[in-house]
């Protein structure tokens, strides 16, 4: 007995995810909201391609076209990583830099895994006509190389990594909710030399250090905690203040869904 229901369910989830990411692109354009265009485009492509791998009746483009597409995306994401590291380095300016730095790396892994599935695994090529639900559990030559399992494990690591970051956005919403928006957390420190820099100026200058606010009558200064940091596209989803970002948790959910489904296919199709 084969779990055909699982394959069909995953194919449906992939199509839904692709449709959702397509909707994100349109909605973000129309409503002037922020999103990762390149990532959403990649998710649309991966979702449609994987649905076709899971169920032959959903195949849309030929394998050759998919291979060219995913190769181009791999180059794109690799360039983004190089761009990121050259601009920001591997050590960043805040305590969540690992999430920033891993953003493009995980998507590079995803598109390379897609490319690998088309090039190396039989189900994506000539055997695809029978569909994955009829694949046997006997290991193939590709399985013997270990690459499918390595790809799968990398994707699972990425999935739990993204899962860990979901709760960041709960904080963002809490801080921004309610009738008194834009409350800023302050920590009061020992007196500093007179003439502290106004917070707004410091923030506008993108200072890494907290901005100083003189507090009259108390001889203390307040430090704006980790709020005056610059943002950039690779990390914009991480910024608690960027309310223009379109549904960040749903975006992360699409990453997780993609990673899980791809990992499943790599393991089952090997």
């Amino acid at each position, binding site marked *: *007995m084969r*779990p055909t229901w699982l394959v069909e369910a995953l194919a449906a989830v992939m199509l839904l995810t692709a449709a959702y990411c397509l909707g994100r692109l349109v909605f973000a354009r129309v409503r002037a909201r922020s*999103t*990762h*265009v390149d990532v959403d485009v990649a998710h649309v492509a991966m979702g449609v391609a994987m649905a076709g791998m899971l169920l032959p009746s959903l195949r849309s483009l030929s394998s050759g076209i998919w291979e060219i597409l995913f190769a181009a995306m791999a180059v794109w994401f690799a360039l983004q990583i190089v*761009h*990121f590291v050259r*601009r920001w380095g591997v050590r960043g300016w805040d305590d969540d*830099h*690992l*999430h920033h730095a891993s953003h493009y790396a995980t998507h590079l892994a995803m598109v390379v895994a897609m490319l690998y599935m088309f090039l190396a695994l039989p189900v994506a090529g000539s055997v695809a006509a029978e569909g994955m639900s009829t*694949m*046997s*559990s*006997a*290991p193939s030559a590709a*399985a013997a*190389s*270990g690459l499918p*399992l390595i790809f*799968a*494990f990398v994707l*699972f690591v990425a*999935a*739990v990594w993204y*899962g*860990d970051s*979901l*709760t960041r956005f709960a*904080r963002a919403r809490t801080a921004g909710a309610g009738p*008194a928006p*834009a*409350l*800023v*957390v*302050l920590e*009061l420190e*020992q007196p500093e030399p007179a003439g502290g820099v106004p*917070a*707004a100026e410091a*923030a*506008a200058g*993108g200072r890494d250090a907290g901005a100083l606010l*003189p*507090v*009259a009558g*108390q001889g*203390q200064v307040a430090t*704006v905690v980790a*709020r*005056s940091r*610059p*943002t*950039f*596209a*690779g990390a914009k989803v991480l*910024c608690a203040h960027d309310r223009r970002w379109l549904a960040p948790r749903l975006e992360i959910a699409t990453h997780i869904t993609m990673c*899980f489904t791809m990992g*499943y296919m790599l393991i*089952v199709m090997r």
Partner: protein
Amino acid sequence: MSAGTLAGVTRGWSLRRVVPRAEPWCAPDSRRILQLSLAAVWLFDGVLQLQPYMFTQAFGTGMIAPMAHGNPAVVADAITWSARVTAGHSMLAGTAFASIQLLIAVGIAWRPTVRAALTVSVVWSLGVWWIGEGAGDLFAGTASPLTGAPGAALLYALLAVLLWPSRSDDETAGGGFVADRPFGALPARLIWLVLWGGLGALSLSSGNRQPEAVRDAINTMATGQPHWLSSLDQAVAREVAGRGLEASVVVAVIFGLVALGIFAPPRMVRGVLILAAAVATAIWVVGEGFGGVFAGPATDPNSGPLLILLAAAFWPLRLSRPAAGPPAPATPGVSSAIIAAGARPELPTEMPTPGLTAGQR
């Protein structure tokens, strides 16, 4: 907003009274990274459980039932019953097993449910250890640390306990390693001592001292593996052929060093942990054949990766204890405070970026 306003706001107000703030999010620390590693392994296991083979009767009859062999009735009866039920409801059982493991992975990865997921993982692991692994063959007398004893599932449970999110979130608290946070440094080290000391004792058991015991164990795992792995296994098996006693003694000595080395000074402990990770890797590759994941249907990658994770949990985060000094003086008036919206810095929301954003370009 003026500074005076700020002062007024800070007087008599606390942030928690005004804004019901969620627990602040912070970047993953060492323990969290190890928890996420454990979650990734659970996710891997859950997906392995989704392989078509696991939804067939053969999973019950061919994978669970043989675990009863050689075990006492208290273990064997439970295994036989479980195998029968699983084989009779293969689709339901396969779905349930995979779902539980996937939920554990998701639960550990999502911060609000870490404790619940770790609790479930302990219960599930012990159940799998008893039924799915035949209690690691410890009662059957055939357990060998080279092939996965005392059972990978037991290590999952152990890791869940040692990575428990205790109150102490200070990385430098306690003895300075992740595993010491739930119970303290000494109990954690004793757990390590018992585990590795037990592995050493197992390797000296009568069954493992037989002249061909080690060779046979390795040869068994070589069956069905890819050529490169089976060739490696066979080469090692040839080296230890007829030298079961010597091999067992060498392995036991190494295990003993690893077990006792955890009590050494931090700098030396790091060396011991590197040795432990190297031994675990060697066991994983040669003795366990990567848990058989290359050979066909497998339910988990066996104990090698978990022993490495365990070693990471004991890694000293600092090499010397901080000098004891007087506590920092309390800062008068230090508190969390708020300022009203008018004082909020206008944050730059857009920077020149390496990526593209829709709606803004």
